[in-house]
């Protein structure tokens, strides 16, 4: 635990040495948007292309065997990283958004879901007001196709899910919520949500896009049916996401996209489909990206996810303290580092978030401004947009100081 050394970690990330316009050093506080990549991941991808590149599954020659081995070992590493009991419960998608859409599509298409029949009129799909657009948009579309009704958990003034705002019932078929909010930073009581959903026989879909990168995750202990996350937020490459699903459930669901390796046999008019995960991976998969993601989870495991989480916690606590000193700055979401991840959204007096982020950028501080793909949640708090600073395993307290200094400069610039 004591071996986590943020300065040593930073040496692995070449981009952190960049200098920006005006020769100021980069202060990257936008990791909830996408994380930076260590040299180990960059090299793993480059080496794969340079020495082992071939298509997988289909190719029986030596390069094909090497590429298949590298690709499938990416899958095993991810499975081990999230505590999946089976490797074949890990489906590779292009990002978390595809993973969530995949679930919504195939649940809508299924004629039978674990003895409860298809989803239809009278059934309810439950999400929350705290979701990223990727875990909102697919669900009303499912409701439109099936006749089911959309309901959602509301959010309290201090940025927590209000689990009593609606009641789950036997009509509830799916409960889809985020583990950690990408806007508020809130860590939701997903175990409790899974328990409640199970007690009424509903399936659970957990959006782990912000939790898997930040904290130790064990999908088997969680007991959810599906967990979705994305490579680029966990020091891995773009172009790859993961849908973890309970095997028997995956095996009972219809395919999503057709083609390539997802078939068992094809005739012009009718095909039969392969077992999971292949059933849900049409076409050439993200091969080099799976290799890169494997290297990413190796990297995270070598640091230790407890250490990553502890560091995140510490930096977040420090940031919450320092930001409270900035006059006119208003944090939306939990103000204490309790059940809270490293994303802090705030407003700064009347200065529009775009203008805040522009001024911060001129000082080398990279944050995000806008609705962070969580428009309903912004509406909930009566703001059109916010500025968000988000932290990760390479973030230092000195960078938080730089943020605060740049915020004070911004206040002066706009005279607030």
């Amino acid at each position, binding site marked *: 635990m004591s071996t986590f050394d943020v300065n040593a970690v930073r040496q692995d990330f070449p981009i952190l040495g960049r200098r*920006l*316009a*005006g020769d*100021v050093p980069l202060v990257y506080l936008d990791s909830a948007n996408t994380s930076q990549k260590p040299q180990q991941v960059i090299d793993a991808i480059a080496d794969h292309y340079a020495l082992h590149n071939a298509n997988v599954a289909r190719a029986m020659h030596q390069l094909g065997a090497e590429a298949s081995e590298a690709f499938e070992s990416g899958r095993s590493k991810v499975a081990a990283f999230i505590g999946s009991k089976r490797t074949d419960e890990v489906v590779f998608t292009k990002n978390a958004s595809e993973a969530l859409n995949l679930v919504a599509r195939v649940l809508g298409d299924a004629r039978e879901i674990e003895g409860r029949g298809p989803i239809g009129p009278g059934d309810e799909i439950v999400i929350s007001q705290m979701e990223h657009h990727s875990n909102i948009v697919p669900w009303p579309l499912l409701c439109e196709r099936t006749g089911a009704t959309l309901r959602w958990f509301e959010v309290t003034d201090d940025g927590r899910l209000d689990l009593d705002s609606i009641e789950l019932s036997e009509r509830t078929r799916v409960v889809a919520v985020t583990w950690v909010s990408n806007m508020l930073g809130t860590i939701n009581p997903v175990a409790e949500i899974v328990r409640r959903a199970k007690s009424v026989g509903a399936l659970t879909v957990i959006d782990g896009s912000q939790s898997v990168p930040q904290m130790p995750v064990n999908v088997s202990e969680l007991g959810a049916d599906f967990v979705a996350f994305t490579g680029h937020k966990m020091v891995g490459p773009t172009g790859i996401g993961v849908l973890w699903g309970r095997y028997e459930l995956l095996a009972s669901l219809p395919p999503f996209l057709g083609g390539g390796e997802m078939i068992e046999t094809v005739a012009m008019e009718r095909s039969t489909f392969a077992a999971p995960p292949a059933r849900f991976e049409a076409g050439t998969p993200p091969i080099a990206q799976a290799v890169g993601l494997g290297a990413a989870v190796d990297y995270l495991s070598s640091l230790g996810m407890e250490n990553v989480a502890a560091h995140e916690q510490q930096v977040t606590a420090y940031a919450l303290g320092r930001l409270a000193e900035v006059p006119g700055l208003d944090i939306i979401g939990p103000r204490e580092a309790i059940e809270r991840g490293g994303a802090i959204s705030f407003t700064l007096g009347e200065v*529009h*978030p*775009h*203008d805040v982020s*522009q*001024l911060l*950028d*001129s*000082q080398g501080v990279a944050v995000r*401004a*806008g*609705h962070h793909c969580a*428009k309903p949640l*912004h509406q909930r708090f009566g703001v*059109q*947009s916010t500025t968000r600073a988000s932290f990760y395993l390479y973030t230092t307290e000195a960078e938080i100081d730089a943020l605060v200094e740049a915020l004070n400069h911004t206040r002066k*610039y706009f005279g607030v």
Partner: protein
Amino acid sequence: MNAANVDALYQEIILDHYKNPQGEGLRDDFDTEVHHVNPTCGDEITLRVDLDGDIVKDVSYAAEGCSISQASASVMYELVHGKTVAQAFAILDEFHAMMQSKGQIEPNEDVLEDAIAFAGVAKFPARVKCALLGWMAWKDATSAALSLKEQEQS
């Protein structure tokens, strides 16, 4: 000039328009109304156009957004209201060209007046959409108003 030099972006004129927006508010006389959103950041504008024959009699709007998008709507109001539709479209074209130029085009001050202050914005690609939001809304609303009048006449 580079990203560190925000003064190029936040010209005095822009900050003035931001603090004292011209022509703001939604007025009751209008032919068409549109609502535009910048999907990336959520900036919004509701805009109404009132044509009197060939003349842009009024442009009224309610906008929520950053200094650049707000100031741009204000400058746009000043430039197009009272002009003929043809003149106003010519100004729009000039403004649009300047914004897309990445700072390579010398802006025409005779046509653009206060709007030349936005020349600096063209060097900040992420902000170009902010500066264009009001103008694109005006273009849409005016085109709709024109086809409306055409239909009425036929």
